[in-house]
């Protein structure tokens, strides 16, 4: 208690002293002078100012970093099984991987979205997409655990996901690869006739965060790549870039780059909500899975859903528009005021900036340049606010600092370029060594960015760090953007390939962080709430071990009566009620993983003994001076043998007081002799 207070006091002193030396970050940097690295230095024991959550790309996970130190704080397992703590291997978490394709133990995570209230991060949840087997996951930021995964049906490559609206009403996603809907056996060269693209709206329950597929919009068969939702005046609208408006299906690098411009979809989701209420949707049978962690039992439960609701733009006028966007776009970003929408064509040297007001006016005045599949195409010139002329090569993504500036990554020319949103004037450029993809400014996608730092995430890492064979860690580069010019202050490696990241002020998460699970609220059906309740129960060839862990022993620690062919469930309850004292459980010959059990929590590992003998089990997380002694034995007898079930923890001493007394007296005497 006091420790925390003192650390806090030290932190406060820092803020106070910094303030006394000058309010502006730029002045601080002048005081610091020479070494830019000092600006990223956070003294041991001090806390970072921001959490940065980075998607893990092909690792399928999320990593949490501190900014400005670049410290890796945690890897949060999401779409990939994680032997480090048994996620996906423990009985409680297996259901997280259920999909309509069966158990899928991996995915490719891309875009991080933090929950928002009134267009600002509220620090409650974090969402991320699974690209390969289309899914959206929710992480609870009280525990940093994945608590929900929702599959999205009838789409492929859910890259354009899960972009959030400003009160977390919806997570918007679009199919990257259009496919036959419903899936059917057709020649691929019938793409234009048979392939469609779905844009999906997943609603988020404001109290619990639970996700539900609210509706899907059936769109022409393009590749929907990235989205952003409006904010402020443009709240209620979504903007999605598409490529392959050519509707090709082979050698896309040539065939899908024919046209000078592709199309950006502009969707009035409030109108879509209205059509849903009016019942203008059709229902279609399909299959997708919803996996949700029960908060009381902390067991994931899985439910197959079989119905989806579809809106067709043809029956829903004024709901969907297109607007031309420079060639093969990959970026689409809305500025903090909600007025400007940046469309980047990665094969175009220029960047188009649209005005929301002009888009609305063009719609009102029906300034359309034709239509596609019945969807009006808004006149490019009528909606355009201006063009950022030749800022660099291969513009990808843009973030904002809340001071009227935009920052765009350039994949081909390997730089970040700062420009003025109103005047479109270029203000600064910095090299990023090289090929940056996404970039993040804390709150850079919200109505109130905290324009102090910028992190650029590089796709390629040649020459940045000590070599580690052909594959290198991806690199992230931290810039101080508080002054007129960007200043590189740190360069740190990341896990997997982070596609996007979001960063949030630490004080929006830190005070709510759970330190342990209250054991009195543990409603796990196999919880053992106290050592006296430990037991072993046989039911046919299933054996359930109700085991507890506390510094520094497991109970029971001697178990006999297992037989070859048994299926043994170790239900381990961690009796600790203290911060950062997980206990682990591993048993020799287990074919899955270990468990890490948090204080007050129950987790279950299945073990199927295949050999006769005595096998050791132990705690894997160093917990006390006597951690090494936190171990035990499981005796396995041949199939059909009549060795009775027997379990205990120092049974002789426990049951016989005189024996215990003698034991300790002897131990004391021996200790004295030693002196």
């Amino acid at each position, binding site marked *: 208690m*006091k*420790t925390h207070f*003192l*650390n806090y*006091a*030290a932190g406060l*002193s*820092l803020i106070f*002293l*910094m303030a*006394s*030396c000058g309010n502006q970050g730029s002045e*601080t940097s002048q*005081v610091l002078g020479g070494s830019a690295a*000092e600006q990223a*230095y956070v*003294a041991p*024991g*001090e806390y970072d100012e921001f959490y940065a959550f980075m998607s893990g790309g092909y690792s399928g996970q999320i990593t949490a970093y501190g900014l400005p130190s670049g410290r890796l704080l945690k890897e949060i397992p999401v779409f990939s099984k994680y032997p480090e703590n048994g996620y996906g291997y423990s009985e409680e978490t297996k259901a997280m991987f259920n999909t309509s394709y069966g158990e899928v133990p991996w995915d490719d995570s891309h875009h991080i979205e933090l929950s928002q209230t009134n267009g600002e991060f509220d620090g409650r949840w974090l969402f991320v997409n699974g690209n390969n087997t289309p899914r959206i996951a929710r992480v609870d930021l009280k525990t940093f655990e994945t608590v929900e995964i929702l599959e999205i049906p009838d789409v492929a490559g859910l890259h354009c996901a899960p972009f959030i609206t400003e009160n977390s009403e919806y997570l918007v996603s679009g199919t990257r690869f259009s496919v036959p809907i419903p899936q059917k056996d057709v020649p691929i060269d019938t793409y234009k006739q048979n392939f469609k693209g779905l844009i999906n709206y997943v609603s988020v329950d404001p109290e619990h965060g639970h996700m539900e597929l609210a509706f899907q919009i059936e769109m022409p068969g393009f590749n929907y790549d990235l989205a952003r939702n409006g904010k402020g005046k443009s709240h209620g609208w979504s903007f999605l870039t598409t490529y392959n408006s050519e509707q090709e299906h082979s050698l896309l690098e040539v065939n899908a780059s024919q046209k000078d411009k592709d199309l950006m979809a502009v969707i009035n989701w409030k109108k879509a909500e209205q059509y849903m209420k009016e019942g203008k949707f059709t229902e279609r049978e399909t299959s997708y899975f919803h996996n949700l962690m029960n908060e009381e039992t902390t067991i994931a439960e899985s439910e197959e859903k079989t119905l989806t609701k579809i809106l067709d733009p043809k029956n829903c006028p004024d709901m969907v528009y297109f607007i031309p966007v420079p060639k093969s776009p990959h970026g689409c970003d809305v500025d903090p005021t909600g007025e400007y929408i940046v469309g980047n064509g990665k094969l175009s040297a220029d960047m188009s900036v649209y005005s929301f007001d002009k888009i609305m006016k063009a719609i009102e005045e029906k300034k359309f340049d034709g239509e596609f599949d019945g969807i009006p195409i808004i006149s490019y010139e009528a909606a355009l606010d201006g063009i950022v002329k030749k800022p660099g090569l291969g513009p990808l993504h843009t973030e904002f600092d809340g001071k009227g500036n935009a920052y765009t990554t350039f994949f081909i020319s390997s730089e970040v370029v700062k420009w003025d949103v109103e005047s479109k004037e270029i203000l600064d450029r910095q090299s990023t060594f090289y090929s940056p993809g996404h970039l993040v400014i804390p709150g850079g996608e919200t109505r109130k960015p905290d324009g102090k730092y910028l992190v650029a995430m590089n796709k390629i890492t040649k020459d940045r760090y000590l070599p580690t064979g052909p594959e290198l860690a991806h690199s992230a580069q931290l810039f101080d953007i508080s002054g007129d010019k960007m200043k590189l202050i740190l360069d740190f490696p990341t896990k997997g390939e982070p596609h996007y990241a979001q960063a949030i002020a630490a004080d929006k998460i830190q005070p709510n962080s759970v330190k*342990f699970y*209250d*054991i*009195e609220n543990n409603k796990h059906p196999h919880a053992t*709430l*106290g*050592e*006296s*309740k430990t037991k072993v129960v046989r039911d046919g060839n299933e054996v359930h071990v109700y085991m*507890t862990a*506390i*510094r*520094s*022993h497991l*109970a029971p620690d001697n178990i006999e009566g297992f037989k070859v062919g048994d299926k043994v469930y170790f239900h381990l309850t961690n*009796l*600790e*009620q*203290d911060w950062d*004292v997980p206990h682990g459980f591993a048993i020799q010959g287990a074919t899955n993983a270990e468990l890490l059990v948090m204080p007050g929590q129950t987790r279950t590992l299945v073990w199927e003994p295949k050999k006769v003998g005595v096998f050791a089990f132990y705690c894997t997380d160093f917990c*006390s*001076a*006597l951690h090494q002694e936190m171990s035990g034995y499981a005796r396995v007898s041949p199939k059909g043998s009549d060795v009775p079930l027997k379990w205990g923890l*120092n049974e002789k*001493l*426990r049951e016989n*007081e005189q024996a*215990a*007394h003698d034991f*300790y007296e002897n131990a004391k005497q021996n200790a004295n002799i030693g002196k």
Partner: protein
Amino acid sequence: MKTIKILSTVLVGMLFIYACGSKEQSSSTAEKQTTEKQEKKVPETIKMGKGVGEFTEVEVSDPLNEEWTKRGEAIYDMKCSACHKLTDQRVVGPGFQGVTNRRKPEWIMNMITNVDVMLAEDPTAQKLLEECMTRMPNQNIKPDDARKILEFFRNNDMTKAGKKDEAIKS
């Protein structure tokens, strides 16, 4: 505890340098820190055998409150029994038999609710740590519940040792 406090003072000093780059101020902080260390005194409550924590005066009365005893036993079962027996047998931690005859109610309740500080400052608690070699975990027991555990201990002492609350008399 002492260590932590000094460490924090050093940190504040370091941050001061970090923020303003003043070496003079940091040396004066260091002097202040040395003085603080010397002035550190053993709290009165420790001298009185009450340990250190939020409990400085705890009243005990007869007869025992049965409801409290039951609640105390339930918490003992869930959070304490893995390391402490109700007899005088030491397992991971000391046996509970006679604890109210050895330790004052305040000490017991402070040990339950303020274990990290007790292990850092209270000589009796430190001696127990040397014997047991396992730090007692902070089991996050609420102040109200600590009182109920005390009641359970008093009841246990009457049952096992035939007398209770002897430590108050000494």
